[in-house]
């Protein structure tokens, strides 16, 4: 014989609704009383809006939104060099100038490990390290940052851009 559960009584349904209302009230109270849940609730709404706003963007474009122009520049190095490239980077001082023209990318890019992640398997060699003799890698390209780097090339360049990457 098949076992069936009887139809729920009105009383059972009301009791269920009362417990549901109680649980719901606890969570509303928590969201209102605790800054953490309030932030989380707002984050859920913001996240939904952000995902709708950026859903057509590629993964790299989304990363640019999170990481800014540092990533844009490193992506330029990545897209314009072969995987085996060893790229000469400017001295840290070039990235640390406080004027507006250098605000395009910031000193985060001087963090060797962090910056290398975005161009890997290409290698970054910083001029400061070459001077200190701590790197054995021979650069194949030079990173142009605010016109720094053109003087390293043994050939003339007709059209110069402030940010670029050139082969030696």
């Amino acid at each position, binding site marked *: *014989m*098949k*076992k*069936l*559960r*009887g*139809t*729920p*009584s009105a*009383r*059972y349904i009301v*009791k*269920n*609704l009362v*417990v*549901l209302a*109680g*649980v*719901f009230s606890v*969570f509303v109270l*928590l969201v209102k009383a*605790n*800054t*953490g*849940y309030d*932030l*989380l609730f707002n*984050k*859920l709404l913001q*996240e939904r809006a952000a*995902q709708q706003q*950026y*859903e057509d963007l590629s*993964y*790299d474009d*989304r*990363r640019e939104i*999170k*990481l800014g122009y540092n990533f844009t520049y490193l992506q330029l190095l990545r897209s314009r060099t072969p995987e085996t490239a060893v790229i000469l980077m400017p001295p840290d001082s070039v990235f640390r100038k406080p004027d507006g023209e250098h605000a395009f990318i910031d000193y985060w890019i001087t*963090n*060797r*490990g*962090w910056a*290398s*992640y975005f161009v*890997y*398997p290409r*290698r970054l*060699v910083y001029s400061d390290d070459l001077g200190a003799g701590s*790197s*054995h*890698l021979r650069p194949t390209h030079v990173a142009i940052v605010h016109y720094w780097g053109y003087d390293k090339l043994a050939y003339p360049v007709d059209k110069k851009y402030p940010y670029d990457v050139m082969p030696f």
Partner: protein
Amino acid sequence: MEIAGLFITFLFGVAIVNLLAYQLPVGEKMGYAWPVGLGANALLMFVLDLCGVSLRHVALVLAIELVLIMVLAVYILRRYRPPVQIKSLLERLFPINLAWIFLVGIAVFLVYVVTARALFWPVYIYDSIYGFDFVAKAVAQEGTLHNAIFDPQHPLYSLRSLYPPLVALNFAFVYLLGFETSHVVVVIFYASLAVSLYAFLTRVTTHLGAAFYTVLFLSVPELFNFASLSSSNPICAYYCAVGLLALWRAVDTSSHADLRIGSVLIVLALWTRPEAIVFSVVAGGLVLWWSIRQKRVWSVLIFGAACLVFWGSWQAYLHGVLQVTGDQPMDFMLTWDAGKLSRMWSRVLEVTFHGAYYGAVVYLFVAIVFLNIPYFGKQRQTLPLLGIIAVAWLLYLLVFYQLDTDFMPDSTDWIGDAYRRGLFNFIPLMLLYCAASIWSRTVFEFVERWLATDKPPVVE
């Protein structure tokens, strides 16, 4: 390929969990499956790498796992001959009332939001980019842990790159499967934490209570944030917290299955982050306690040897193969500095009771501890759990006290950074303690009884 590859690691975990602890309820085994499967997956990749096999052959890794799944399945089916009881299983898993459905709905929604967020955004946090995700990218590119990051002439590693390889290898695994982000691994552990915690909670409270505490866990703001980032903290929290819970129950119920699974989780924790050493010490104490009560000295010896082998294997690899040293910024000589301790302690209190980090969980836990004080003598089950939390926390604080810092405002904020995320390891333990308390049980059992009086009867 992406989904199939992850599903194979899940099945791999199911097979191993059934081998270790067939007697456990299905819900618990589902919670354990993926973390154990991914842990074993990392171990297999490490062994293949040592044997000189390129890890870029991810199909080979999956093929070996499939063969092992089949061998284990045949062994388990022959040994246990399990009867198929899907109907009774479904009835036990879904005790329907509206509040429970609402709470489970919130839990599923939170996991969905974390998953959607994790898959939408690429990896961008500093710790991962200059740490395990970079190692993972290099493993996926070069097929070995011994890659360009560890080139002694041009090193690109940070302290986090030298963490034990479980996280980096699994991140590499998902990249090799074709995923664009390693976030998916962290999401799996977040969801597994929820399933495992729910399964543990149902042993100490009603299903409604279990759902309530599971939602409290999933909505811990700091954990919710980190679950969709490329962070190793939720992964470590799974192994440490669930491992300790399993060992606590092994001691409480003299269960061999819990002892085996708990020990495996703690050993895997040691392959995740260095902080797991603290939890493995507490776990070692629990296994020792179990061994003394059961008069089985081999258990504690095997556990100790497994911990040493796992931790030692990575340290030997670092020194012998990669030839790098993972020096921790710690002073191993115990020294007394009242000023340092005072500054650290005030920062610890500030972070621990910060509502924006852990929501109501820490407050609830402290309130329940105080309410339980009159009943300490009668709490055979929960008092040891409180002891585990207290000892682990004190040891954890000792590690921070021994760090080479003065905790002055202008120095590295270890408490606001590492400790803050390290508290994830304690949250499941705290919530289980709350749920098992007489106060919580009284409330939820009353609600369930009140509902049950008008429940429609079963008719033939």
